[in-house]
């Protein structure tokens, strides 16, 4: 072994990380090389200062604070709730149909109020044709019934800051 080739080996030798065969070779070299022997001594002094520096002990308060922060920050993986909505996709179609009907009704009412005389004619028509009333009533019932279901299925925030469509994390405690 030559001095210039074993500088890294000297560090590993000083920290006792060399395989026995290599350690023997370095041992043999430093026995006859004063410079490398001194090098190993100074490296050992530094490594011992690193190893022997006392560790700091965490306090209960620090661990408790870190635990509380960690718990608060935990964002589990979210899993979509299995499709448990009553009527399944039918609810979506009913919601869409109801929405169209209600929108049509809203336009009709707006026009009736914007043109004097039309309102009376409109109401008279509505009362004379019960089917119109039935359609309006059914539309409102459909929308009112399926709105929450559709919101839940689509994961729309429900106003409590949570998302009703997402499954709560499985608590394995």
């Amino acid at each position, binding site marked *: 072994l030559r001095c210039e080739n074993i*500088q*890294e080996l000297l*560090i590993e030798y000083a*920290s006792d990380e060399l395989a026995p065969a290599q350690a023997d070779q370095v041992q043999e070299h430093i026995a006859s090389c004063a410079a490398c022997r*001194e*090098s*190993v*001594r*100074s*490296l*050992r*002094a*530094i*490594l011992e*200062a*690193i*190893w*022997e*520096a006392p*560790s*700091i*002990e*965490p306090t209960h308060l*620090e*661990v408790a*604070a*870190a*635990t509380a*922060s*960690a*718990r*608060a*920050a*935990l*964002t*589990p*993986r979210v899993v979509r709730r299995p499709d448990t909505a009553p009527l399944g996709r039918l609810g979506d179609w009913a919601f869409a149909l109801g929405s169209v009907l209600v929108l049509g009704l809203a336009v009709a009412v707006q026009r009736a109020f914007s043109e004097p005389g039309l309102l009376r004619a409109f109401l008279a028509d509505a009362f004379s044709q019960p089917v119109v009333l039935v359609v309006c009533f059914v539309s409102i019932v459909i929308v009112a019934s399926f709105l929450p279901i559709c919101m839940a299925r689509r994961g729309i925030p429900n106003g409590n800051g949570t998302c009703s469509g997402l499954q*709560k*994390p*499985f*608590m*394995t*405690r």
Partner: protein
Amino acid sequence: VERLSDEELMAQAQNGNVQAVDLLVSRHYGLVLNFAYRMLGSRETAADVAQKTFTRVFASARTFKIGKRFKTWLCAITANLCRDELRAKAGKKEASLEELQEMAGDAFAAAGTAPDAADEAALRILGEELWEKVRALPDKMATPLILHYRDGLTFTEIAEVMKVPVGSAKSWTFHAIRRLRAELTGNGLLDTEGEVE
């Protein structure tokens, strides 16, 4: 639950198990605190960084890939936060060499002539100066040095933490040791025989 590995606990934490979170924090808080302390030199700042580390770990729990080592992931996050902290306080004045030498002189004077007390004081001063020098090293040298010689991580693990080849992690560590030796020898804290004065 106590018998589960870190990675198994992390998988449970990903599903919202807070008991797994508690256990991971209590297992590794000491490691994170001490690593941050060695990098930053202030217990108070180290405790802040440790708390931020665990907050970040569990805030991004869902990004943890199963099959990865939790400890290296944790160390990587700690190292990043320490680097941010060091950058933030980069403008602050560090203890000058003169101040350190004065501290050393005071300690030797206080130790009197008793050889044991003098050795102890010398070791303490070497330790103090050493850690100042470690903290003055570039991050890429200080991080593997502390992780390897203080926290017992292998160079393979350190390479994973630092996202560099194993050879680079090892080479920076050895550079760090050589630079420390040169600087401490220059300050007279290591005599020519390599022993503590």
